[in-house]
């Protein structure tokens, strides 16, 4: 299976040079091809599952448990101002 590696990179916001794309494209295609072998298994009569683990949904009551930890949480951010994250302009 051929992968449009440039498109995948664009969707993931990863910058790729043409050389990297030429190198990664076949590798990704190989990986997909490997996984695709699963499609050969006959699953007739097998109930589809939504999740590999047969566990119950953990349930949370509607009670506020988190306190304001803005300073600590924003510490790794490249840039903040008045408590807001500052990012490159995104509007078109």
């Amino acid at each position, binding site marked *: 299976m051929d992968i449009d590696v440039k*498109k995948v990179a*664009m*969707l*993931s*916001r990863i910058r790729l040079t043409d050389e990297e794309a030429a190198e990664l494209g076949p590798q990704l295609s190989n990986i997909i091809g490997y996984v695709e072998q699963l499609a050969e298994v006959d699953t007739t009569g097998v109930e589809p599952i*939504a*999740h590999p*683990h047969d*566990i*119950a*949904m*953990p*349930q*949370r*009551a*509607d*009670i*506020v*448990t*988190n306190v*304001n*930890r*803005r300073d600590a*949480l*924003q510490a790794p951010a490249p840039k903040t*101002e*008045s*408590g*807001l*994250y*500052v*990012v*490159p*302009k*995104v*509007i*078109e």
Partner: protein
Amino acid sequence: MSWEVVIGLEVHVQVNTKTKQFCGCSTEFGAEPNTQTCPVCLGMPGQLPVLNMEAARKSVLTGLAINADINLVSKFDRKNYFYPDLPKGYQITQFPLPIVEGGYLDIPTKDGEKRIGITRIHMEEDAGKSMHEGLDGVSHIDLNRSGVPLMEIVSEPDMANADEAIAYLKQLHQLVCFLDVSDANMEKGQFRCDANVSVRRPGEPLGTRAELKNLNSFRFIKQAIEYEVNRQIELIEDGGEVVQETRLFDSAKGESRSMRSKEEAHDYRYFPEPDLPPLRFTQEEVDAIRAGMPELPGQLRKRFETEYGLSPYDADVLTQTRDLATWYESLVAAHPADPKRCANWMANELLGRLKETGTDISASPVSPARLAGLLERIADNTISGKAAKDVLDAMMTSEDDADAIIEAKGLKQVSDTGAIDAIIHEVMAASPDQVAGYRAGKDKLLGFFVGQVMKASRGKANPGMVNQRLKELLKG
């Protein structure tokens, strides 16, 4: 040749839980930026979402109220896209197996009731808020809203014009308010609408649709849909073709523009959310949620008509919100003798005065008990309806009860036959020509006498009695 318009709506409703969909952060509106966040809703690596079951129950309740099927097993998926207000790089939502499928709402249209299909309701989470205004080359991000529970309610393309779309939205808005599943404040973005609009010649397959985004008031939604319908018809009639795209409505200019760059990236690569197992409800749990269903607007309207004898119009006005309905029922409880008088005075007089000052019924300066006190005085003929309006005016700005105001303003009505007869005799003595005319058959002169008597009594004579006594005494 005519055109048919086809409209489907996607409504995002913020669920009014105290905490977010997948973490214990507060959802309170208006907090300082980024003070209601945690590693989960900030998308930090290694964090696991844990579902807010109250949000799930409210989604089930909404599904039951639109007569839909509840999927006892539903699952969560990831919708992937890049935007700085979505720190995880994906939104947790429900794609192939949502919690609710296949319901409907009946809406009023000019041709009678129309059933609008609802395809599905799925649970998801809100994104943060981006701000661009007045900033040079940067945007600011507040993630307090990141992870707030949403229901996306997707309709069938069953609406044929902007008015039907608005009727559907108003019905849905009223419903989620009555169910108390959302505060649905449109200005706060708690009830937002995207509209899919296309046109076609009658009998032809569906045309290509455009998606209108960012519609946050009923007025803009109507404007945006009408603008889009005209744009598409003109485009096709000029030999052009509608392209499938997302358009952003600019309410200031009254027109929409294409957001093409987003279109290129329109590949969400949905896949199952590995961090959440399927969501399961038992039929017993669903039945218990159904048992807690409050009275819905339609049922309340019908009950007001049958139980209190209200006109469909009054019943509709008084059931617009749960607060209005509760206020009305408190008024009736305090003045049970005449539920219709209660409805008239509340709908026409009180709500009219509240509207002038932009006051909500919940903040009404006049309580049901005080208004009932006034209605008692109309019922026992202490004051006329006209004087009662003056008393209500006074009540809006004072805390006195009706009796105190009637006393202070000297509005007590004269219902004493002797006193009224005395005034009538005076008036008759002063207008012998009119008396003669009336007796000669000019019945219309009765109005003249009523006016004179009311004037002579400075408006305090009981008009019903004045009429009755005048007819008697004018006979001669």
